Structures are given as C-alpha cells and as structure tokens.
C-alpha cells in the first residue's frame, strides 16, 4: 500500500521540459530587444510647382551644398550660400548668426553625388543644434 502511494506522487517532467525548452528556443530566436533610437524631423517643400511667389523670395534661405571631399577628415565638404565651411562647427555657428538675423530662415540641402545618409544626418544635426527646424531637400519639389 505504501509503495503504491509512492508511485502515485511520481511526476513525469518530460513534457514540461519539452515545452519550456521549445519556448525558450522560440523566443531566443525571435527576440529583438528595444533599441535606443531617435529621429530628426524634416519636411519636404509644401509649395506646388516651380512658381515662386514674391513673398517666398523675401524669406531668407540657407542653401547648403554637400559634396564628397576625400581630403577632409569627415570625407565631405559643406558650402553654405556659396561659401565653403571649414567644418560642421563653423556651419552651425554661421547658421546661428543667420537665424538671429532672420528668424524665418529656411535651410535647403543639396546632397551631391556620393554623399551618404550619415553626411546628411550630420548636416541636419548641425542645423537643429541652432534651432533651425525648417529643413527641406532640394530636387523634390511637388509636381504642379
């Protein structure tokens, strides 16, 4: 009778271990931990067509050209309104000056051939550092 009681309390652990291991394998294979990501907010031009109104001409613009320059440590050069900038710090400082003179300043980026996403993000970052939020990209004006 005592022996029978012992047999009754014995538990087969196999299914539990099976299920547990299968779950662990599934989650380990599919898991993607939350990463710390941010965003830079920009926008495309809202105006339609190539017609520029006189009102728009009054708004000060910061035309920023990016081109590949392997002689620079960053690998790319920046020109602001036709003036070559020695670096991103200078670009930020100059944009800050322009922003103080004209609070409605709008930056337009002209990425040249070979320019990478990182280069563009660095320039956008330089603009945002001086609270210049109105950033657009050239060559993507709305169709008429």
């Amino acid at each position: 009778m005592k022996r029978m009681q012992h047999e009754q309390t014995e538990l087969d652990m196999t299914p539990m271990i099976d299920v547990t291991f299968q779950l662990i394998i599934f989650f380990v294979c599919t898991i993607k931990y939350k990463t710390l990501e941010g965003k830079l907010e920009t926008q495309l031009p809202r105006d339609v067509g190539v017609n520029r109104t006189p009102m728009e001409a009054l708004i000060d613009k910061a035309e920023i050209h990016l081109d590949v320059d392997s002689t620079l440590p960053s690998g790319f050069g920046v020109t602001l309104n036709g003036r070559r900038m020695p670096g991103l710090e200078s670009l930020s400082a100059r944009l800050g000056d322009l922003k103080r003179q004209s609070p409605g300043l709008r930056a337009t980026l002209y990425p040249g051939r070979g320019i990478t996403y990182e280069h563009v993000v660095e320039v956008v970052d330089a603009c945002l550092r001086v609270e210049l939020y109105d950033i657009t990209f050239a060559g993507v004006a709305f169709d008429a």
Partner: protein
Amino acid sequence: MARKQELEAIRMDMTPMIDVVFQLIIFFMLVTDLSQQDLADVRLPYAGTAVKDEMQTGRLTFNVLKDGGIEIKRVSQGRMDDPATQEWVRRFLAHEVARGRREPDGTSERAILIRADRDTEFKHIQKILRVCSETGIRICKIHLGAAQTPSRPAADPP
C-alpha cells in the same frame, strides 16, 4: 479496483508546467517590443539633437539598406534604381495616403520614417522623397532615423 488504481497512477499534475509556461510568456512579452518589429537591422548614424522617437500611429517606416535596397515590414522590396520598385513604392504610398487624412494645404497628414544605414548613398533616399512629393501622394513630414548614442568605432569589414 486494480484498473482504477492504474488510471490514477498515470494522472499528471499540469500545474508546474502551466506555471513555468506562463511565467516565460510574461517574461518575454515584457522584454519584447512588438512596435519595433518593422525596424530592420541598420547602423544608424549618430545625431546629438535626435529626439526620442515615439511610435506614431499611421506613420510609415522605410528601411534603406546599405546597398540601397528597401525593406518594409521585414520584406525586401528591391532597390529604388529599379523602375518596378519605384512603381511599387508609388502605389504603396498612394494606397496608404488614401487611407489617411489631408492637411488644409493638401499635403498628407501621414509621416514617413526613413531609417537608412549610415553608409547608404543619399541618392536612394532622395528617390523615395521624390515619390513622396508626387501629386496624389504629397507626404512632406519626413523623419530621419538616427541613433541617440554614438556607436563604438568598429573595425571595417575586410
């Protein structure tokens, strides 16, 4: 009597298994973020001014890989160099925009998040932006994905 005893002997207590299974499920549900399932593995560039990206409803996410390939919701859609891919993106965006509302100036209310590898040529992204600006689509809220913490300098692959 002997048959009844035999039946009782093979009964198994499922409680520990259910406990463990539920605890595992709860643990993995807490550490897994389903909202980031449409984010591809790309090396984002660092930007000091990048703001915390709160997941927005209705925002579209485009992952652009190093070779210019586009990935949307973990599905590769080809490169923007390919006219067929451009056409697919055009139809996809037009369909998505039609489901959303428009601003008073006619532009779409929807935003687009572009997450590209840091070494991706910008011309690939520019092609997406060009489609965004087309008549009938007109998405002008563009979010550029960036890392909030600088990554450790890694050795370039050989």
